């Protein structure tokens, strides 16, 4: 049984459907990357999986249980975590408070989880008392991922985590994402930097017009001349 199995999702923000029969799946300890041209519905697919977009048809199964009717807050309780593309930290709160808010649902001692994310992102430990709004773009993205990890989720969903950061920071973030994957968490990620993202992906999905155009392992998609020519360039 897959950790996440979203099948035949159709729906959008009211009006015309953005997704028309799109399917995404990921298993524990795997990275799934969704790529595709602008307006293909990549972010919408993520939001639909998290319940932020209403689905007209299709199902979202987490560990085999249908969670399609649950509100986003309830999905957090079920072990899902979502990092939005923008406004993904509480800018007026300190780094430490951001992490505490990430762990809001946990009533137990969170100090161990804090130490774990500090080990993963050492720069956050240095800046723990600073307001998140004072962090650089790359540090902010790290904090956004760290906040999501505080609930100790099974499934981590990242909406363009490398948007607006330098290539150096991007490589570093991908390294961290691979480390997170090693802990057995399933990761679904939407990426603009298709080549680098597919290189670390176990599964890749190429979405076009809200449908799955190509589905394969990351390496296979990178090797496919048609995919390279149309969606990756070169």
């Amino acid at each position, binding site marked *: 049984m897959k950790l996440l199995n979203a099948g035949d999702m159709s729906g959008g923000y009211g009006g015309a459907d953005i997704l028309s029969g799109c399917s995404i799946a990921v298993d524990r300890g795997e990275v799934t990357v969704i790529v595709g041209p602008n307006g293909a519905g990549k972010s919408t697919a993520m939001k639909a999986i998290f319940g932020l977009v209403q689905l007209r048809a299709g199902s979202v199964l987490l560990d085999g249980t249908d969670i399609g009717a649950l509100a986003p807050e309830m999905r957090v*309780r079920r072990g899902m975590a*979502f990092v939005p593309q923008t406004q993904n930290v509480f800018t*007026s709160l300190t780094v430490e*408070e951001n992490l505490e*808010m990430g762990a*809001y649902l946990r009533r137990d001692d969170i100090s161990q989880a804090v130490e774990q994310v500090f080990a993963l992102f050492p720069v956050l430990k240095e800046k723990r008392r600073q307001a998140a709004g004072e962090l650089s773009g790359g540090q902010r993205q790290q904090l956004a991922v760290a906040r999501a990890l505080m*609930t100790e989720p099974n499934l981590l969903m990242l909406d363009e985590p490398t948007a607006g950061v330098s290539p150096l920071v991007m490589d570093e973030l991908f390294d961290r994402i691979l480390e997170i994957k090693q802990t057995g968490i399933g990761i679904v990620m939407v990426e603009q930097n298709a080549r680098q993202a597919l290189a670390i992906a176990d599964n890749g999905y190429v979405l076009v017009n809200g449908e799955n155009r190509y589905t394969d392992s990351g390496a296979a998609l990178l090797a496919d001349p048609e995919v390279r020519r149309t969606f990756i360039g070169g």
Partner: protein
Amino acid sequence: MPLVTDLLNAFLWIFNFLVLPAVTYGSALALGALGVTLVFGILRFANFAHGDMMAFGAMVTLIGVELLNRYGIFTYPVPAGLLLLPVAMAMTGLLAISLDKFVFSYYRRIKSPPVVVVMASIGVMFLLNGITRLIKGVGLTPFNARRTFDVGEVDVAALADQLGEKAVAVKSDFATQEKFVQVSEPELVFFDVAEFKAATGLAEGFGLDLIQVLTVVLAVAVFLGLYWFLSRTRTGKAMRAFSDNEDLARLSGIDPQRVVTVTWLIAGSLAAIAGTMYGMDKGYKPFTYFQMLLPIFAATIVGGIGHPQGAILGGYLVAFTEVVITANYKKVVNYLVPESWEMAGNLQLLGTEYKFGVSFLILVVVLLFRPTGIFKGRVL
């Protein structure tokens, strides 16, 4: 020694007619502005009903004080209003939560633009306006008004012992010759103006009573308590997070309904404290609370709306400006200038009737030149 006396007189005047009134009034404004700013920070609308929530809180306290007194219970030297404050806070908090449940939650659900919610809050303001007037009338009612009892209803000797001989009097009705007991509960005064003048021989007196001290002490305690709550507790941090980024707060599993309920509870409690303290100082009159809405909004916006520190600073700033602009400086100037320069006319920038005009001016100037306020406002 005339120079020293003149300087002392001038100093006493400044303290008595500028600093003390501004600090007590400023404390009431700051407490009111804190409530407005909290509601704005979380719910994103300016709550026009806040002034009348203050009136409601003061009315609850006043009714409690009158009930206690009717049963012959006087709490002097502690003001009864202070003892009843927790009741008023709870009642006003409940009122605020039920107003949210029956009015504001609907507009949240249908995702109304803020201006619609503001209009709804004006409706709520008129509703509360009517309720307070229906229950307690429109007139000025002091918290320690004179009470009358039948003879034998109260223990005259014990009351005279507690309140002082002057406070309790047995009188007889002119027409019926029936005897009755009249009690006027005094207020604890640390410095009495007349006594101070007689003791020091100065032309200016010095007056300070318990209510004024309590207003300031309570305000500072509330500021510290609220700061602690927002920066140290899990719920307080969740409120700040919700105010900062509502979507991300939901994604972190913060329950919006809980945040909203706590916010109204705090805003209602703050309104009750502000209203009661102001009422105990100046007497309860519903219209004054409605009028205070303007300086409270000015204080909120000067400080930066959504910023608790800003609300406090703004409250004192507006109060000081109002008092400084509307004070009559004739006496203090006459103390300081040589005798031949003394003036006979008034030295006043603006009559006290226009003190709300000062708040309005502050509001306009701030909105024109620094609309975000002193602390760049919007979030808690």
